[in-house]
């Protein structure tokens, strides 16, 4: 972990802020990594025939699965936004405030868009 030095007045606020960003990014990544094999396996069931995939898609209409999908949407939005923030931080000469705003904007936009598709069909 990188140690950063701030003035006394800034230290606590800045460190907690960045630490939460790191933790969110890591936990959302972990969640996605655990979901991914399941996602691949379900799609691979199409190997047998379309009926097999349809059976899974029908199961996907149930309430619990929809809730889980919404959770995944959140994980993806958070991880992508946090990741883009990191890339901007490392590759671009931006000011810190802008980077956080950009990440929030992307994350929010994605979550809103994806929530719409979750609710309606």
């Amino acid at each position: 972990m990188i140690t950063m030095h701030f003035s006394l007045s800034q230290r606590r606020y800045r460190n907690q802020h960045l630490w939460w960003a790191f933790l969110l990014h890591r936990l959302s990544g972990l969640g996605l990594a655990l979901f991914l094999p399941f996602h691949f396996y379900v799609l691979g069931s199409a190997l047998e025939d379309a009926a097999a995939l349809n059976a899974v898609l029908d199961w996907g209409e149930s309430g619990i699965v929809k809730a889980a999908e919404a959770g995944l949407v959140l994980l993806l939005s958070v991880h992508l936004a946090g990741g883009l923030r990191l890339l901007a931080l490392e590759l671009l000469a931006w000011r810190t405030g802008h980077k956080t705003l950009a990440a929030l904007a992307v994350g929010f936009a994605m979550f809103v868009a994806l929530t719409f598709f979750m609710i309606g069909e």
Partner: protein
Amino acid sequence: MSKESRLFLWQRISALVLAPLVLIHIAVILYAVQDGLSAEEILARTRGSLFWMGYYGLFVLAAGLHGAIGLRRIAAEWLGISGNRLDLSAILVAIVLIALGMRAVVAVTW
């Protein structure tokens, strides 16, 4: 370049590849689920398509690499795994993710 530096670099590269692929993937899903979702609809779009095979093939490679490197870091920092065990575990994760992913790509685009 040290191993850790190289992995750090590949994590960033795979992230840069994944970002647009993920956004396109989401856009396609949004379009596809408009009137409900069925296997026939999905497969009609993707079966026999070289484009989707290439797209999802790249997606699987990047995601497998990115996920394996990320999980390796978590294993090192939170589970205290190190040395050969750490690297072998990461390689195993990458193989499982990419193998399952490629099976799905073939299932959907072949």
